[in-house]
C-alpha cells in the first residue's frame, strides 16, 4: 500500500477512505486559504516511521533541498509531479481519524483534519537517491580547499558543509546507520587509509567517474524514458533522408549535443509545467531518475512516422545507439546530481580515459550526420520548388490584401478631400514660412 501524507508526516490518509465530510458548516462559505496546505506524498514502503523529511545540501544547485531520510533504509529524494499550468487540477484530500498514524493521534496535537481541497494537484514521490551524491559537495569542498588533498575522516568531511546550506546534516549523522551509509558510499569514490579504528578519505575523481559511468551504463542498458529517448537519442542520431520531401523536417531537427539540455529548474524536481505523462515515464523506468523538465516539453513538435519507408542516408548501428544512450545518461546524471565545475572535470576525464568507454564510433557517426544535414539544407534551398511556390502564393495573397487595404484607406481619405485641397498640394511653397513661425501657439 502506498501511503500518502500531508506535509511533515503530520497526517496520513488511506486513499480509499470513505468517511463523510463534516456537513455542519454552510455549504457556501469558504474557509480562508491555508498558508500551509496539506500536500500529497507517495513514500516508499521500505521507509520506517522513524523517517523524517530534512533539508540537505543539493549537490547540483548548492542550496538546501528536502530529502526523506530513513535511519534504516536510506535517503530518498522528492520528485514533484504537477499538472501543467494550462490544465489546472486540484486534489481533494480526505482523511478519517481512524486511519491516522497511531503515534500522531495519541498525542492529540493534531488539528481536526478531515478533508481539504488543494489548489494545485501536486504529487511528491520519494525515490531512493544514492548518498554518494549527497556527500560529494563535502568531499569536493575539502579537497579543493587545499592543494595537498588531505585524508580526512568521514565526519570531518561532512562537518565542512556549512549549517546554512545543509541545516540537518549533522543531526541525521547520529541516526541509526546513516553515518555508516555515508561512509560506505564515500569509500566507493575515495582513496582510503585506515588510521587507528577510523577510515580516512580522500576524493579520487577517477573512482567517481567510474561510479557515475557504471550508473550511466546501468541506465542505458534499457531504453531511456520515452521522451528522453526520443529527444536525445533518436533525434540526435537521425540522419536526413536524401529526398526532397523529408529534407525539410530532418533539417529542422538538429540536436547535436544532448548534454546541453540541462534542467532549467532550480531544483532537481521538475517544474510544474511538466505533464503527467512524462512523469509516469519516470516511475516506470528508473527510480533514480527524475525527469528534467526540458526533456518532456519540446518533443511533440515533429514526428517521423509519415515517411518511415524512405530510407535514411545512414543508419545508426546498435553500438552507436548504445553509446549515445550512455552519453545521454551520463550527461543526465551529471546535470542532475553533480555541481557544474565537477561535471566539467568529469567530462574532461571521461574524454581522456578511452579505456573506460570509447565514444569514437559515436563521434564519427555524429560528424557524418551533421555533414548530411548541411547537405540536405543546401539541397533544399536549390531543389525544393514545390515548397517555395506554396509560400509565395501565401505571401502574394497577404501582399494583395495589404495593398487593397492601403488603397481603400487612400480612397476614403481622398473622398474627404476637395479638388482645391488636392491642387494646393502641388503648389511650390519654397521660401514660404510656416504660419507657426509668425503666430505663436495658443495654449
Amino acid at each position, binding site marked *: 500500500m502506498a501511503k500518502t501524507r500531508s506535509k511533515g508526516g503530520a497526517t496520513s490518509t488511506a486513499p480509499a477512505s470513505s468517511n463523510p465530510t463534516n456537513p455542519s458548516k454552510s455549504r457556501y462559505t469558504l474557509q480562508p486559504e491555508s498558508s500551509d496546505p496539506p500536500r500529497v506524498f507517495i513514500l516508499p514502503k521500505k521507509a520506517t516511521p522513524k523517517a523524517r523529511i530534512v533539508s540537505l545540501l543539493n549537490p547540483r544547485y548548492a542550496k538546501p533541498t528536502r530529502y526523506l531520510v530513513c535511519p534504516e533504509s536510506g535517503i530518498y529524494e522528492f520528485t514533484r509531479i504537477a499538472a501543467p499550468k494550462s490544465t489546472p487540477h486540484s486534489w481533494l484530500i480526505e482523511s478519517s481519524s481512524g486511519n491516522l498514524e497511531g503515534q500522531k493521534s495519541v498525542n492529540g496535537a493534531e488539528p481536526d483534519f478531515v478533508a481539504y481541497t488543494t489548489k494545485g494537484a501536486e504529487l511528491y514521490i520519494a525515490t531512493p537517491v544514492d548518498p554518494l551524491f549527497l556527500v560529494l559537495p563535502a568531499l569536493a569542498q575539502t579537497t579543493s580547499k587545499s592543494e595537498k588533498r588531505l585524508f580526512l575522516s568521514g565526519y570531518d568531511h561532512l562537518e565542512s558543509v556549512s549549517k546554512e546550506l545543509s541545516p540537518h546534516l549533522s543531526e541525521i549523522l547520529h541516526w541509526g546507520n546513516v553515518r555508516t551509509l555515508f561512509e560506505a558510499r564515500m569509500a566507493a569514490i575515495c582513496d582510503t587509509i585506515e588510521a587507528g579504528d577510523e577510515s580516512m578519505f580522500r576524493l579520487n575523481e577517477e573512482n567517481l567517474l567510474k561510479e557515475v559511468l557504471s550508473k550511466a551504463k546501468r541506465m542505458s542498458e534499457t531504453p531511456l524514458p520515452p521522451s528522453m529517448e526520443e529527444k536525445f537519442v533518436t533525434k540526435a542520431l537521425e540522419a536526413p533522408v536524401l529526398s526532397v520531401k523529408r529534407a525539410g523536417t530532418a533539417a529542422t531537427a538538429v540536436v547535436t549535443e544532448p548534454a546541453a539540455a540541462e534542467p532549467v529548474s532550480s531544483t532537481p524536481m521538475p517544474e510544474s509545467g511538466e505533464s503527467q505523462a512524462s512523469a509516469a515515464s519516470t516511475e516506470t523506468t528508473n527510480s533514480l531518475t527524475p525527469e528534467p523538465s526540458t526533456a518532456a516539453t519540446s518533443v511533440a513538435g515533429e514526428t517521423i512516422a509519415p515517411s518511415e519507408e524512405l530510407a535514411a542516408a545512414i543508419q545508426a548501428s546498435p553500438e552507436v545507439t548504445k553509446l549515445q544512450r550512455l552519453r545521454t545518461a551520463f550527461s543526465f546524471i551529471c546535470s542532475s546530481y553533480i555541481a557544474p565545475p565537477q561535471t566539467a572535470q568529469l567530462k574532461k576525464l571521461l574524454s581522456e580515459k578511452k579505456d573506460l568507454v570509447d565514444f569514437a564510433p559515436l563521434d564519427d557517426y555524429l560528424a557524418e550526420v551533421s555533414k548530411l544535414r548541411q547537405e540536405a539544407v543546401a539541397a533544399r534551398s536549390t531543389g525544393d520548388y514545390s515548397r517555395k511556390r506554396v509560400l509565395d502564393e501565401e505571401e502574394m495573397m497577404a501582399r494583395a490584401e495589404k495593398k487593397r487595404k492601403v488603397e481603400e484607406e487612400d480612397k476614403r481619405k481622398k*473622398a*474627404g*478631400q*476637395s*479638388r*482645391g*485641397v488636392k*491642387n*494646393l*498640394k502641388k*503648389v*511650390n*511653397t*519654397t*521660401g*514660404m*514660412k*510656416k*504660419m*507657426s*513661425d*509668425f*503666430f*505663436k*501657439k*495658443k495654449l
Partner: protein
Amino acid sequence: MLEARLEQAQLLKKVVDAIKDLVQDCNFDCNDSGIALQAMDNSHVALVSMMLKAESFNPFRCDRNIAIGLNLVSLTKVLRAAQNEDILTLKAEDAPDSLNLTFESSDKDRISEYDLKLMDIDQEHLGIPDTDYSATISMPSAEFKRICTDLMAMSESVTIEAGKDGIKFACNGDIGNGSITLRTVQDVENKENNIEIALTEPVSLTFSLKYLVNFCKAQNLSKTVKLHISNEVPLLVEYAMEGGSYLRFYLAPKIGDEE
C-alpha cells in the same frame, strides 16, 4: 446645446465653399459669441480664420463651448441640398456626435433635415496678434479676383508693391511678364467701387498666386476685400460680412528666391 438659425442659408454655403478648397477637416468652435473657425492648409503656409458673430444669426443660442469637427467636403454635400434663400438651423448637443441641419424653404412648405457625423479633430490654435500694417488696401472683391486670375496665367507668384502712387501687382513668368497698377478711386455713387490705400511706408512682397486665387473664392461673401501688407508678416486678406462677422485669410510671403 447649440441652436443657431440663419435667415439665409447662402451665408454658410458661401463660407464653406470658400474654405473647403483650403482645408479638409476643421473644428467649428461654438460659444456664446458665435461660431469661430481657425484652420491651416496642409502645408501650413496659409491660415483661414472665420468668425460668424451671434448677431448674424437669429436667434443664436450656445450654452457651452462646443467644438464641431467636420469634414468640409461632407458639409458641402449636405449644404448643396439647401437653397440660397432657405432658412438654415444648426443644432448640436453639448457633447455632440452629430450636427443637425434643417433647411426650411422661405414659404415654409418644405423642410429638410440632415444629421452629419462629426469627427475628432486635433487642431492647434494659433494666437494672432493685432498688427499695424504698413499698407492697407481696400478694393472691390471682384477686382482682386480678376487681378489674381489674370496674373495666374503668367506666373505662379505675384509681387504686390504698395507705394504712394498706387498699388502694383506684378508677375514674371516663363512666357513674359505683366503687371496691373491700381490707383485710388473715389466713387461717390457706388462706394463699393472705391479703391482706398492707407500707407505708412512703401512695401513690396511676393505671394503664391495659387493661394490668392483660392482665397478669392470668398468673393461672393463681400463686395469689398481688404489687403493688409507688412514686411516680414503674412498677408491678410479680409472679407467682412454683416454684423461684424468676417472671413480672413493669412498667407506667408515668399522670401528669398525671386524667380
